[in-house]
C-alpha cells in the first residue's frame, strides 16, 4: 500500500501522561511522528492532539483504533491533506544589519507575506504562517544570508468534514 501524509486528530481529556501513552503507540510500530501539536479544542476541558505521520492508510487506521482505545481518549480521526485545512507557523531570527546590507532580504520578506514581529539593534524576528513548502521556501531563501535561529511549529488542522465530539459527549451524559 502507498505511503501518504495523514493528519490524526485526537480529542482527549486533559490528563498528565496521556501524551506519553499516545506517542507510545507510534513507538510500538516504529513510526516517526513528523509533527505534533497539543492545544485546547473547541470544547471546554477537552484537549486536541494533532499528529502528522507518513505511512499507509491501513497502518493509520490501525493506529487510530489503538489511540481511541486509550481510556482518556474521547475520539480520534484521521484525514488526508485534501480533507483538511492546515497550517504551520515559523519564526526566523535574523541579524538586523542584513536589512541594510542585503537589499534582497526586504524582497524576501514582502514576497513571503511574513510579518516582522520585533526589531532590535541586533536582530529582528519574522513570523510566517502557511503550508510546509512555503515555510521551507522562505527558509531556503533566507539561509544564504544567515539565520540566527529558526523554529517551526507542528501542523494545526481543521477538517472539512465534521468531527462530532459534542454529540458523543452528550450521548454519554444522556445514556
Amino acid at each position: 500500500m502507498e505511503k501518504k501524509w495523514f493528519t490524526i486528530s485526537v480529542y482527549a481529556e486533559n490528563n498528565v501522561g496521556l501524551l506519553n501513552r499516545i506517542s507510545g503507540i507510534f513507538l510500538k510500530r516504529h513510526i516517526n511522528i513528523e509533527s505534533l501539536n497539543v492545544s485546547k479544542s473547541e470544547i471546554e476541558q477537552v484537549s486536541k492532539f494533532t499528529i502528522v505521520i507518513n505511512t499507509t492508510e491501513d497502518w493509520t487506521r490501525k493506529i487510530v483504533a489503538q489511540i481511541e482505545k486509550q481510556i482518556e481518549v474521547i475520539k480520534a480521526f484521521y484525514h488526508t491533506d485534501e480533507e483538511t485545512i492546515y497550517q504551520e507557523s515559523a519564526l526566523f531570527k535574523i541579524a538586523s544589519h542584513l536589512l541594510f546590507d542585503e537589499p534582497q532580504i526586504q524582497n524576501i520578506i514582502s514576497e513571503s507575506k511574513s510579518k516582522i514581529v520585533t526589531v532590535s539593534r541586533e536582530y529582528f524576528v519574522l513570523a510566517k504562517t502557511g503550508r510546509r513548502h512555503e515555510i521551507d521556501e522562505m527558509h531556503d531563501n533566507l539561509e544564504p544570508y544567515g539565520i540566527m535561529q529558526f523554529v517551526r511549529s507542528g501542523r494545526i488542522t481543521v477538517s472539512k468534514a465534521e468531527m462530532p465530539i459534542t454529540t458523543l459527549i452528550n450521548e454519554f451524559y444522556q445514556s
Partner: protein
Amino acid sequence: MSMQTLKEKKPESHNETSIRISGAEAIIHCLLAEDVNLIYGYPGGAIMPVYDELYKFQDKLQHVLTRHEQGATHAAQGFARVTGKVGVAIATSGPGATNLVTGLADAQIDSTPMICITGQVPRHLLGSDAFQETDIIGISTPVTKWNYQITKAAEIPEIMAKAFYIAKSGRPGPVLIDITKNAQFEEFDFSYSRCIGVRSYKPNPKPDTAKIESAAELINNAKRPYIVYGHGVILGKAENQLRTLVEKAGIPAAWTILGLSAMDTDHPLNVGMVGMHGNYGPNVLTNECDVLIAIGMRFDDRVTGNLDTYAKQAKVIHFEIDPAEIDKNVKADIAVLGNAQESLDLLLPLIKENKHEAWHNKFKKCYEEEYNAVIKDDLYPTKEGLTMGEVIEEINLASENKAVIVTDVGQHQMIACRYAKFKQTKSNITSGGLGTMGFALPAAIGAKMGAMDREVVAVIGDGGYQMTIQELATIFQNKTPVKIVVLNNGHLGMVRQWQELFFESRYASTVMTNPDFVKIAEGYRIEAKRVKERKDLKPTIQEMMASKEPFFLEVCVENEDNVFPMIPSGASVSDIRLK
C-alpha cells in the same frame, strides 16, 4: 475546578457520609468496598503506611506475602482468571514497582483484570532521583490499560473506583495506581462510590443488529462453517451461548489457547486447538471452511501462521468487543462489535438448526490421521521414556477432568493445552500472549486461593519452574494445597526443539544442569516425589491428587521429545507438519 481526571457519572446511591482517615486507610476501605478480601504483595519503604493499615485490617483483608513482586502479579492473575474478579497486587516504589512489569504486560496481552498499587516517594521528592524512586507511570504506560499517579489523599476514592471500573469493564486489563507516600499519610474526609461510567471510555459497544442479521444469514447458508473461540467467550460469560450455537447449527468449533475450557473438551463438536501446535484438522480445515466464525479471539500470529494464506477462501465473521482488533490481522467480512454474550444472544434466535455431518467428518478424519501419527505415541507411548502427554492424561484420569490446570510456557504448555480435559470454564490458566516463563507457580497459588473447592494442578517445565521457584515459600507459609508437577526434560525444550529443526541441532544454552528438585521442595517442607518410570506414574499422580496438602511431583520425561503437529514460523496453517 473539579479535580476529576476523567469525567464520570455519579451513581444515584452516592454515599455522602464521610469519615476522616488517612490515605493509607482509605485504600483499604476502597478495596473492601470493591469486595476485595485477598491481595498479594511485598512491603517496602514507600508503601509502609498501607502495610500498617493492612496489619490493622487483617481480619477483613488477607494479604499474601509472595517472595517476589512478579509472583504477586501472577498470583493476582491466577486469582482473576479463575474467579473472573479483579486480582490485586501491591508493591513498594522503585524495584518493587519495576518487578511488576512482566505481570502487567502479561495481564495486558491476555486481557486479565488486575490492579497493581505501588508506593511512590513523597510528592516533594518526585523527579529528584530519590531513594527507590522510579518513574513507574512512564515505565508501565505501554503495559497497562490505564495508570495514574495519586499525589493527594483526596484523589484516592475517585481514582480507586475508576481503577476497578476500568480493569474489569469491556476488554479487561491491568491498571496501575502509584501513590506517593505523603498521600498515604495525609488525612481527609473519605467517602466512596463505585464508578459507573467514564465519558471518554466506551467499554461495551452495542452489537449492531443489522450485522447480526447478516452474520446469521451467512451462517445459515454456510456449507462448511467453522467456529474458532477465544478468551472473549470466557471474559464475556458466553459459554452457554457458544455451546448452544455450536449445537443448534451443528458447527465444529476449535479453541485458542486462552479459549480452552470455555466448552467441554469432550463435546463431540469441540474439535481441538488452533495454532502453531494445535490440532491437525482445526488448522488445515481453516483453509477449507466457507464461513469462519471467530468469537472473542484476536487472530494472533501463533494462531494464523502466514496471514497471506490464512482462510482466504472463507467469509470471516468476527465477534469482538475491542474495536482495535477488528481488521487488525484478518479482515472481517462482518464484524460484530460487542460483548460475546450479548452478541450471541441476539444471533441465536436467527440461527436455523442444521447439521454438517460431512464437514464434521473431515475433522474426524483429520483427527484419526493425527491420532495415528502423533497422539497415540504421546498419550500411550510404547517407548521406554516417559512423555509429557501421558502425564497430562494421568492427571485427566485422576482428576476426572475437573481440575484447574495452570501451565507455564513451552513444550509442556502446548502438550497440556492439547491434551488436558475440562468440564468447567475458567479452568485453563496459562500465559498465552506474552509467553511468560515463571507464570505458572505463582498463578497456581492465586488460582487455588480463588477456587479452594477445586484441585489446582500447576504443570511446569524445569526451565520456567526455576524462574519463580521462590514462591514455594509462599505455598509453604500459607499451606496452599496446590499440586505442582514439573516435567523435567533437562532442557529448555521448546527452544531446543526449534534449534533441532531450524538451527541444525546447535543447542545453544538450552541444556540445563538442574538441582535436585525433590530436595528443594522438601527444603520448603513440601511433600515431594520423583517419578522416573512408567509403572510409578499412575499411582504417584493418584497419591498426589488424593493429598490435601501442597504436593510436588517431578516427572523425568524423555529429554529430546518434540511437540507435533507444528506450523513452522511464517508457514501457512495448511502446511502444518505431523512430524
